[in-house]
Every structure is written in C-alpha cells, then in structure tokens.
C-alpha cells in the first residue's frame, strides 16, 4: 500500500489536480488524501468554487445566427462553396 501524500504536496498540486492535468495515479492519490484530510478539504472546495466562478463569465453572442451568417457570407465572397 502506498503512503498517503502529505498536505504540502497536495496543496502544491491542487490546481493541476482540479484541472485534471496529473497522471491517473497522482489524481487518485490526491482524491484519497482529500477524502480524509480535514485540513485540505475546505481549501480544495474553495478552489473548486473559485474555478467554477471563472467559467460563469463566459459570454454568449446575443445573435449566434447573425454572426454565423456574417461569416458564411464573407467566406462565400472568397469562393467558399458550402451553403
């Protein structure tokens, strides 16, 4: 059985973990640590909420059909053949 990661290692890799950018072994090791560590859990939750807030600023175009038409018309002006 592998020794559990210490809190310092988990904190150093927390963002990589939340971004899903670690190896599966390392992801699993951090998941296991977070299941039981009362010190790291709240911090991980905070960072997760923070990252969740960043995604919410993604804006949608008010008229997606219009911009699609604009682009297609411009492409057709250059010879694009798909309608």
């Amino acid at each position, binding site marked *: 059985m592998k020794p559990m990661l210490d809190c310092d290692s988990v904190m150093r890799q927390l963002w990589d973990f939340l971004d899903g950018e670690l190896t599966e072994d390392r992801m699993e090791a951090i998941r296991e640590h977070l299941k039981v560590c009362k010190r790291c859990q709240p911090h991980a939750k905070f960072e997760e909420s923070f990252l969740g807030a*960043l995604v919410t600023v993604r804006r949608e175009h008010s008229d997606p059909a219009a911009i699609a038409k604009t682009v297609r018309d411009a492409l057709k002006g250059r010879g694009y053949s798909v309608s």
Partner: protein
Amino acid sequence: MNTRARDDERFEREALVWLPDVTRFALSLTRDESEADDLVQDTFLIAYEKWDQFVPGSQARPWLFTICRNRFYRTEERGRRQVQADTPELESLAAAAIHASAQQAGLEQSFESAEVVRAVEAAIAELPDAFREVALLVDVHEHSYEEASEVLGVPIGTVRSRLFRARRLLQEKLLVHARDAGIGQRATGPDTRGTSR
C-alpha cells in the same frame, strides 16, 4: 466533386463547427460584440486562406484560437510585455494562504452571486495580457494546458506558471472587492457595529 469543393467540405466539418467557441473567445477578448463580430469574421477568413497549411488530423480548435488571438493583438497593437511569475508550486501555496482571508471576507459563500460574477469579469479584464489570455483559455474556455500552450506558442510550464499567477492575482482582487463591498458582513447578518450600548 473537385478538390476545392472537397476542401470546403472539410473546412465546414473541421473549422466552421468551432464558430460558437471562437465567437465566445472573441467576446472574452474584446468584451464588445461588434468588435467580436469583426474578429470572428477575420479569424475565419484567415483560416480559410490558410486552410492548406492546416495539418489534417490535428485539432482545428486551438489552431483557430491561435489565429483569433494573434489577430486580436495585431488589431489592438498591444505590446507583448514580458511577465514574471513565481514557480507554479509557490503560486499554489500562496493561494492556499489566501483561502483563510477569503473565508473571513465571506467570499467563498458568494462565488455564485451576480455581484461576484461581475467582479470576476472586471478582475480578469484588469489582468496583464499574458496572464489574462491564459486565464481566458484555460479557466473560461476550458482548454487543456497543452491546447493553451499551442494557442499561445509557449511551453506548458509557462502556461502553468502564468495560469497559477493569474489565479492568485484574481483571488487577491476578489478578496479586495469582497472586503470593500462588505460581502462578509452581509453573509453573516446585519452589521451591528455602533449600535451596541
């Protein structure tokens, strides 16, 4: 079907399918719909012109984002400043220290509020370009580090260090906002300072 028509079919399938994503990215960069429209149109016209340079089988999304980003900075004639960032690990540890202050300020409980979302948007806009663009790519538009590295033309290690610095700067800005706006006091009930006898 001639070669041109076949190429156009492939452009339709592999490039134009990303139009909604490129539009959202352009909106994030410009923060103005009219400017974003021009940027999206330019992006796809350039992509169409350079379609023969696109390597079949590679990902068109990061390629289109690269064109969009480069076009934006060329149009803006923005200076590409060199930026310093600490090691990613130090940034992660520094962020851990911010957590305690954020709890005190009531920020954590308010991440979903419209007020904080507006503050996040403003905080991202205030970031230096090098940090802003990596935060937009990874955090807002959910690119992997590898895709962001491709779009920005920098190594993955640079993406991580800039991204983690960007996040720490954002947290610091949001913390200041939460304190200034008295978010913690509102989250914990009415402010009774000065009313006790």
